[in-house]
């Protein structure tokens, strides 16, 4: 019985539930479509998932710290438009640092308002989502931007290059995931983020610099957006004004699917990676099965709800409960 299994192996299932679901999906799609489990398809899905993936890594840290970041989508539009536009004007060697700095400034504004002034992160980042989208339109005057000479620039390396036959975006994504995983599990900063997300008051009473920690999580989130913008700009060699629109929800979906608690204080970088891949493969699988692209929204939502439910059920040891 499911309930007995949940009771017996509660925490174990909660930990592995997403992995089990992931494998199940892969098997189902492999059976339903012979194109699904080909190296070409898998690598291409993986590569496409890296944009959402890299951003989700940063947002995972923000969420573990007890906050939200909904501004990452329009921040991605901002960063991508900026780096692509400046590429031809001042060259990639200057365009990249300028874009990174500008994006970090946006992250610092989030961090200041939420970390230092202690304003509600939902309100602040929802506002920033609109503000930054406005900034992009002011900057670009509504025009889309692109890079004139797309074949000869070394900037193509980030999105289109490969190292030992593995696409650069995949290496960047996995490398960053590993670094963040180590930071969150093996370094003092990670421990402090978990403490602040788990109980901000007790953290302050333990001498944890709460404001600074929260501020840093938003800088990290912005840094991830900057990296994602390099991959995206380099892959497309151009950018629309609203290229990142809606990314914030996909990112959040991946983070939740990875089992990171929206209440803060617990979560895992590696499981976010699983969440990202699962979302990407579900979407790809549905398309290969000939479903219209919007069915993926429905399926994604259902998968998230079930994942969250199983997670909560495992924690309280039963599927339904009138009390916490």
């Amino acid at each position, binding site marked *: 019985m499911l309930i007995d299994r949940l009771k017996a192996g*509660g*925490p174990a299932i909660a930990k592995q539930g997403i992995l089990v679901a992931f494998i199940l999906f892969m098997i189902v799609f492999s059976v339903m479509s012979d194109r699904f489990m080909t190296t070409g398809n898998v690598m291409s899905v993986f590569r496409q998932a890296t944009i959402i993936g890299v951003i989700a890594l940063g947002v995972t840290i923000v969420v573990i710290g007890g906050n939200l970041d909904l501004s990452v989508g329009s921040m991605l539009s901002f960063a991508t438009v900026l780096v692509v536009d400046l590429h031809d004007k001042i060259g990639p060697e200057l365009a990249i640092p300028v874009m990174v700095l500008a994006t970090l400034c946006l992250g610092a504004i989030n961090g200041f308002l939420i970390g230092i002034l202690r304003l509600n992160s939902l309100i602040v980042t929802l506002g920033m989502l609109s503000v930054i989208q406005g900034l992009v339109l002011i900057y670009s005057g509504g025009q889309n931007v692109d890079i004139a000479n797309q074949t000869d620039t070394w900037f193509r390396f980030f999105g289109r290059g490969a190292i030992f036959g593995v696409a650069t975006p995949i290496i960047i994504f996995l490398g960053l995931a590993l670094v963040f995983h*180590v930071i969150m599990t*093996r*370094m*003092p900063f990670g*421990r*402090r983020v*978990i*403490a602040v997300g*788990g*109980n901000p*008051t*007790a*953290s*302050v*009473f*333990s*001498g*944890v*610099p709460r404001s600074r920690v929260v501020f840093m999580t938003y800088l990290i989130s912005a840094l991830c957006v900057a990296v994602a913008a390099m991959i995206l700009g380099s892959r497309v060699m151009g950018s629309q004004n609203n290229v990142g629109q809606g990314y914030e929800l996909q990112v959040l979906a991946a983070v939740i699917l990875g089992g990171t608690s929206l209440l803060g*204080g*617990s979560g895992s970088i590696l499981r976010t990676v699983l969440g990202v891949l699962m979302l990407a493969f579900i979407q790809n699988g549905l398309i290969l099965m000939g479903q219209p692209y919007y069915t993926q929204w429905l399926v994604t939502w259902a998968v998230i709800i079930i994942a969250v439910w199983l997670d909560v059920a495992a924690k309280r040891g039963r599927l339904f409960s*009138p*009390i916490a």
Partner: protein
Amino acid sequence: MTDTNTPALQLQGIVKTFPGVRALDGVDFDVRPGEVHALLGENGAGKSTLMKVLAGMYQPNEGRILIGGQPVQISNPIEAKAQGVVLIHQELSLVPEMSAAENIYLGELPRKGMGRVNWKELYARSNAILERLKCRFRAEVTVANLSIANQQMVEIARALTVDARVVVFDEPTASLTDAEKVVLFDIINDLKSQGVGIVYISHRMDEIFTLSDRITVLRDGQYRGTLTTAETDEDAVTRLMIGRSLDLSRNEAAPDFGKTMLEVRNLSCAPLFEDVSFTVREGEVVGFYGLVGAGRTEIAETLFGLRTPDSGQVFIDGQEVTIASAQDAIGLGISLVPENRKEQGLVLQMNCRDNMTLPQVHNLRAGPFLSNGAELAIFDKYRDKLEIKTPSWKQTAGVLSGGNQQKIVIGKWLSMQPRVLIVDEPTRGIDVGSKSEIHQLLRDLASQGYAVIVISSEMPEVLRVSDRIVAMYHGRVMREFEIDDVTEDSLVQAISGIKASEPA
């Protein structure tokens, strides 16, 4: 067989296990109609778990529950209440924005057609219950505007909306004044005379001996026995509870004070406290005694860098210091064990070790990484020193008993090797066994040369642990007493704002 001989409630052979812990190990318990049956045990002995089983919040692994002689299955608190079993919680669980009446009938508001609330009926019934409890407020008032004691009355009133057979009081007097306790005891006796079975959980021996007819003791999840109150005494109960006698004497070793470690001059943070001056020497315990709201906690928070004073000076080891943040305070060797361990002391979902090492986690490194060995060394040292009972360092702090949680917090701050240790209400909500251990620990720390400040609202506690007592009233220091000169009367006068007539 008359009705009074059938127990109102019987629990037989209840076993409840959690991962790694056998919280209840075959516990028997029964309550007869019209008796007060006290349930005693140290924190972690299983009292709360047993009551949660009774209320249907936990399902027992083994054993059965009988109500009025009939075996029943209780799967949630609503069912429990329908069976006439009502739990009055230790922590208030009221909705502060609603009226007393709405809280009393929460979830079962009287209705009229179309699902509309029958307000007239609601208020009439609620007021009738409040009158029965001799409350002097009306059911129409918003709960947030009531005192804690009156909120507790609302909680009790909730229990009386059904024909209760058994009412469980879990530490009901924790936040009540002496006058309010008298009212509560009247209510309990009143319920008793109406044939209701009362389960009374408390750490306070005097209350248990005034109120109860029988006493059942649990230890480490096991049933230790049931005593008839009239035929036993405190010592016998304590022995059953902690397996030994309590040493309640003061440590009379000649005090050996070192140099002044902390000096506070004219510290003000209006309107919380004003013009506060005192000193603490090495090897000395200074007790801060006063009523809730006298400004003692606020002084501690100011010394710990969490509040900014308007004026005044603080000296540590003779040097004037500025403390602008908790990090400053920690750097200067000040530690604060805060008054509310669940909200301020611990990150409940973090494990025991991580909680303990949190203030110094950035220093416990091997290269850039956390040093597992250094963290475990600290945890093991203070687990052994403070005898913290936990199956592993990986245990989530939230599942430990109150006493063990408090020891984790104390261990956290001792591991910082503080020069000044401030302890705010160290034994609030902690059983007598752990309490006396913590008192002994505070005395030991002083004899090791720590400068200790103990903030407490319990007179026996300050009298037992302090070398000197600072009495506060409304944010001001009223008097300072050497422990040998203090009398209970003079102390009570000082914290009530009555000026001492004798010259200093």
